[in-house]
């Protein structure tokens, strides 16, 4: 199972880790000679760092958005939120996530990543149009662009790698409900947290360290 998983996972991780791609020495996937081999744990660490960065960014965006645009907190609106990624079955608990197969977990991660490619670009466009947004968080918009680029790369690569069965049903972009910015930010924050945790669990699964 792991061998079957390893290839696409490594490939995914390689594309997630932009730094690896632009590194000076080529990375060996299958242990070819004459190239630099990165351990899986290192790859996972880098990816986890990236995902943590993404999650922190999304959290900041969300809180700033709420603070800036919605000074009065409305609990009702919080409750009625329903993200477009709700169709994706994700483990909601630690045991559930740990019990999940590595392949499935990887699939979940990829699904999530793919699902967020289009909404993020949409959000980026809407952010640019927003007059207030330039003062809102300029550098954060830049980071969002980075994330967009990253996710775009991932999605394109993943589509070729992973079979459609593993991916499961996808919500086409036409079905996606138009979300307002606040809801989008809320959902993205939640999903980035999911991705981060799933990656950590996956790392513990594939490259176990002490205490995993």
């Amino acid at each position, binding site marked *: 199972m792991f061998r079957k998983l390893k290839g696409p996972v490594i490939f995914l991780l390689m594309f997630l880790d932009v730094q690896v791609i632009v590194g000076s020495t080529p990375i060996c996937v299958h242990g070819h000679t004459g190239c630099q081999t990165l351990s899986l744990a290192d790859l996972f660490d880098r990816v986890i760092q990236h995902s943590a960065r993404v*999650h922190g960014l999304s959290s900041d965006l969300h809180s700033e958005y709420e603070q800036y645009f919605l000074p009065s907190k409305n609990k009702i609106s919080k409750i009625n939120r329903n993200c477009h990624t709700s169709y994706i079955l994700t483990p909601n608990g630690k045991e559930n996530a740990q019990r999940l197969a590595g392949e499935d977990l990887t699939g979940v991660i990829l699904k999530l990543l793919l699902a967020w490619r289009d909404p993020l670009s949409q959000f980026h466009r809407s952010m640019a149009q927003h007059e207030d947004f330039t003062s809102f968080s300029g550098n954060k918009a830049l980071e969002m662009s980075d994330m967009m680029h990253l996710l775009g790369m991932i999605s394109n690569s993943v589509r070729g790698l992973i079979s459609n069965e593993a991916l499961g049903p996808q919500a086409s972009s036409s079905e996606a409900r138009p979300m307002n910015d606040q809801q989008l930010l809320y959902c993205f924050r939640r999903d980035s*947290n999911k991705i981060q945790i799933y990656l*950590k669990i996956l790392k*513990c699964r594939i490259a176990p360290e002490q205490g995993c």
Partner: protein
Amino acid sequence: MMAARHLLLLLSQACLLLETGSLAAAPPLTASEAPLESPHFTACLSREQETFRCWWSAGSFRNLSQPGALRVFFLKKNSLSRTWMECPNYTASVPNECYFNKSYTSIWTSYCLQLRSRHHNVTYDERCFNVEDIVHPDPPVSMNWTLLNVSRSGLHFDIIVRWEPPPSADVKAGWMSLTYEVQYRERNASHWEVLDLETSTQQSVYGLHTNMEYEVRVRCKMRAFDNFGQFSDSIFVHVPGKVHGKESTFPVTVVFIFGVVGLAILFLLIIFSHQQKLMVILLPPVPAPKIKGIDPDLLKKGRLDELSSVLSSHPLCKAEMYREEPWVEFIELDLERMDAAEKTGCSDTQRLLGLVPHLGSSHRLAAKDGDLGRASCYEPELSEADPAVAAAFCLRPRVTSPELQSDRPAPDAGPAPVAGSAPDGEADGRPVIQTQLSTQSSVSMDFYAQVSDVTPLGGVVLSPGQQVRGPGEKGEGGDGQPLKNQKEGQKKEGEGGVEKEVPLPLLIVAPDSGAYTSELGNRQIGSDCSRREAFQDPPAEMPQPPPEKNAVEQFALIVPPAGEYQSPYFIPPTPQLPPVADYTVVQDVDAQQSLLLNPSTPPPPSMAPVKPPPAMPVGYLTPDLLGNISL
């Protein structure tokens, strides 16, 4: 009692009408009752993101505080069923707590909880949340500190604090990512110092003071979330430093500060006291430009001697000075005579030229303005009766030689003899006999004539050539020829120049030439001058000298025999003096402006005229030449 029940029912119905999403808002009070508080959820939190608990309180409804009076129902938003489920576990040990275990806890899902009455008809409170939003991690454990270093002064130290993540939080599996916050304070202080968030499980604390006890604590929260957990137990840090370190350095610092202040004051005092000097040192005055020449300050302050020295040192001035008055030194003035003559009321020139009738030969060459020459003749003992002008034969130095040269056709500038006319009574009206003065060049003229005698009428009898004396000297015969009329052969063309307007009885100078003429042999000079051997009777000699245009060097001076004339002049006997020539023709003036004399002509004792060398300038007129002279 019944009223209270009814009231309560009313109130509960009022509550039902309220929006379910609102939290416990106190219903309006009845008139006489205390403010009522309906049952509500007090808190819901999760410690490890795997389970969570909720607590409620009955509020003012005392009757509902019994267990089981209130019920909690929850709803998961992601589940398809919209049925409310009751709290899976009412904690037995803790009242009013509902515990949701792992199976009931779903992260990233929205929960809604309701607080209902027992019989499902009254909902007192409702809360909705996501579990990850209510996570408050447990405090870290196993905190300890180690000393990093102590400062050199022993007053400060640094420590590093380490801890362990809470055991409930599954950090290793990556289920939770925690960040920590360390706080410390001095033992008895009230304000906590907060350090930055730290992801790792250690933190360095810098700048702590020795001999002081510190309290350190730490708490944590989930990364990218805002809910901090409880603080850990505090640890106490104490590093004993030098016991008297602070006190021992105190006086040192005090002394140092006082010393610095004292030095600064001293420095300022010095600066203020020597301000002027310092200003000069720091900003020296710019010296005025030194221009070579005369310092105007000399003129201002009246230091004429310095000025004259400066002027003399200047080459230009030197020439000027000498050119101006080259013969100043050679002329003597007999001031006594002059005074005497003035007393008689005669003008100097008249006296000189014998115009003064009673004076006769009392001539006086008065010094014109600026004429300070000393005559070579010296006659201190001339008779008072005729305070004549034996000294008057002192001639002024020639001032304008070119002027003198213009009119006389004499080839040479001979010495302009000053011949005082020695009128024998006729000299008074005698016009000026002027010898011709040829002034070829100032240098080669014979400028000097020695007056050996002065006639009573004021005529001047010139002596033959004689050595020219140095400046200021009297004539060589001056010592032995006390007669004023015995002068060095000094010519003063200036005298002639001055007198040229006046037709002088004295033969002296042609008015336009300014030359001095000598009256040879026809003057009766002061009788005492008769001592001179060189004296001749000018008239006797007149025919004798060849009619030359050249200057006759020698004059015949009449030395009247003693007693023959009523000569006012006396020559005191000076036997010891050797006979010398009366005058010497000045050959030339050399570069140093000294006179070059013709040494070759010893003065004949007689009145024989000396034949001048052909090159000699015409300076003297012999009496026989007098007739050739046109006035």
